[in-house]
C-alpha cells in the first residue's frame, strides 16, 4: 500500500478501505455525476438538503486518492474536479459584488438539482421495471385468430395502355437496326420442329399442304418457302423411318402418313 502523506489527520483503516473500495470500483460508475450521487448518499440526508460544499470536498479527496493510487481517471472526472474546486472556492469566499456571473449558491443548487433528478430517474426506472410486464406477469392472447386479410388485387389497364402496347408491338421493327429481313422464309429447322410434333396425328394419308404453318398458305412467296421447307422436313422424317411419302403422279399433291 502506498503510504500517502496527507496533511490531514491520518485516516482510519476503515476509511481507507472505504475509499479504496470506491476507487477500485471507479469503472462501475457511469461518469462523475454518478460518482457524486454515490458520494452524496454518505451524507445520509435528503438530497435537497445536501451540503454541496462537503460533497465537493469528498469528490476532490476521491480524485486525490485516485492520483495517489495511480489510477487513471477519465478526463471528465478531472473536468468535474476542476469545476468543483472552483465552486468550492467560490462557496468559501465572500461573494464579490462586482462579479456578474451566477452566484456560487445558484451553481451549487443546480448541482443538487441534477443529483436529485438523476436519483429520481433511477428510482423511476426501478419502479418501471418492477411493474407487471407483458409476457412475464400478464399475457396476450396465445392463439391469434385474425383478422384474416383478404387481399383482392384489381388489375388496372386503360384503353390507352392497350393501344400503346399494341402500337409498341407493331412498330417495333421500325426501330430495329437494319438487318436483312427474312420474314417470308420458313426454314427447314422450323418445319422439322413443327412436323415432329404433328406427324403422330397423320394416321391416314394426309396432304402435305395441310401441314403448312398457319398464315403461310396464302401469300405465294410465303407458301412456296413453307412448302419447300415442309417437303424437306418430310424427306428427313422419311429417311429416319418415321413417315411414308407418296405421290400418285408428277405434280400431284404429296401425301404423307405416319409409319405404322
Amino acid at each position, binding site marked *: 500500500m502506498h503510504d500517502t502523506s496527507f496533511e490531514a489527520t491520518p485516516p482510519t483503516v476503515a476509511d481507507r478501505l472505504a475509499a479504496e473500495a470506491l476507487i477500485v470500483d471507479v469503472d462501475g460508475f457511469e461518469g462523475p455525476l454518478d460518482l457524486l450521487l454515490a458520494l452524496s448518499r454518505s451524507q445520509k440526508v435528503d438530497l435537497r438538503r445536501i451540503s454541496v460544499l462537503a460533497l465537493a470536498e469528498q469528490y476532490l479527496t476521491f480524485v486525490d486518492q485516485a492520483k495517489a493510487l495511480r489510477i487513471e481517471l477519465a478526463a471528465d472526472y478531472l473536468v468535474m474536479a476542476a469545476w468543483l474546486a472552483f465552486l468550492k472556492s467560490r462557496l468559501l469566499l465572500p461573494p464579490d459584488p462586482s462579479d456578474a456571473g451566477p452566484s456560487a449558491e445558484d451553481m451549487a443548487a443546480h448541482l443538487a438539482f441534477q443529483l436529485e433528478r438523476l436519483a429520481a430517474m433511477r428510482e423511476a426506472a426501478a419502479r418501471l421495471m418492477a411493474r407487471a410486464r407483458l409476457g412475464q406477469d400478464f399475457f396476450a392472447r396465445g392463439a391469434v385468430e385474425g383478422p*384474416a386479410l383478404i387481399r383482392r388485387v384489381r388489375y388496372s389497364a386503360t384503353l390507352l395502355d392497350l393501344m400503346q402496347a399494341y402500337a409498341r408491338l407493331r412498330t417495333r421493327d421500325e*426501330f430495329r437496326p437494319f438487318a436483312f429481313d427474312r420474314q417470308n422464309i420458313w426454314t427447314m429447322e422450323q418445319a422439322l420442329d413443327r412436323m415432329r410434333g404433328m406427324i403422330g396425328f397423320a394416321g391416314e394419308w394426309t396432304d402435305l399442304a395441310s401441314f403448312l404453318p398457319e398464315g403461310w398458305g396464302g401469300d405465294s412467296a410465303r407458301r412456296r418457302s413453307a412448302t419447300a421447307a415442309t417437303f424437306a422436313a418430310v424427306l428427313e422424317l422419311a429417311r429416319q423411318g418415321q413417315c411414308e411419302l407418296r405421290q400418285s403422279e408428277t405434280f400431284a399433291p404429296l401425301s404423307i402418313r405416319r409409319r405404322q
Partner: protein
Amino acid sequence: MTDTPTLFAAPPLAEQERMLEAMLFAAAAPVPLAELAARMPEGCDAPAALAGLRRRYEGRGVVLMQVGAAWAFRTAPDLGFLLQRETTETRKLSRAATETLAIIAYHQPVTRAEIEEIRGVAVSRGTVEQLLELDWVRFGRRRMTPGRPVTFVVTQAFLDHFGLESARDLPGLKELRAAGLLESRPAPDAEGPGEDEPGDDLGQSEMFGEDADAS
C-alpha cells in the same frame, strides 16, 4: 372439491374459473384437461370450473370449446365476418399481359403461336391464365388446322371494362398514329390485321355472333 386434506384450502370455484380463463386465453393451442388440472393449485376441480366457465361464455362473442380432450377459446362462429379485412389493391397490368391482351383484342381469334409470333417471345402460362382469370379473354373455337390449336378471344367483360361496344371499335394503326401514339413512319410491311380491318373471314364479327357455343 376433494375429500383429501390439503395444506391449503382450494381456491373458491370463481377463482378457479379465473385461472382457467387466463390459462386458456394465453395458450397458443388447445390445452388438455389434464394439463389445466396439473397447473392449478392443489384441491382444484378443473372439470367443474371448466363447466362453469363454459356456461359463463355461452352466447358471448367468444366461446369455450372442447377440442378432443383439450379446451380452447374460439371466437363465436357467427362473428367470423368481423375477423376478415378486405383490402383491394390496384395493380398495373404487366407489360407482357397488356401486350398479349392487345394482340388478342386486335387479332382475335388468335392462337398462342400467333401471339408469340407477333410479340417475338414466348407467352408465359401465367400471363394467359391471368387474363383468363380477369375474365378479359376466353377460349374461342379451335382452329381447324393440324394440331387444332385453341384460339383466344376477348370477352364482354373486356369490352365493358374498356368501354368498347365491340372489338372493332379499337383504333387501328392509322388512328393510333394520328393520335400521336405512334411517332414513327409506317413500316413497309406493318399492315397487320388490325390496320384496316380483319382480313380473313374468321374475323371479329363472326366471333361475336357465336359467343354462345364458344366456351
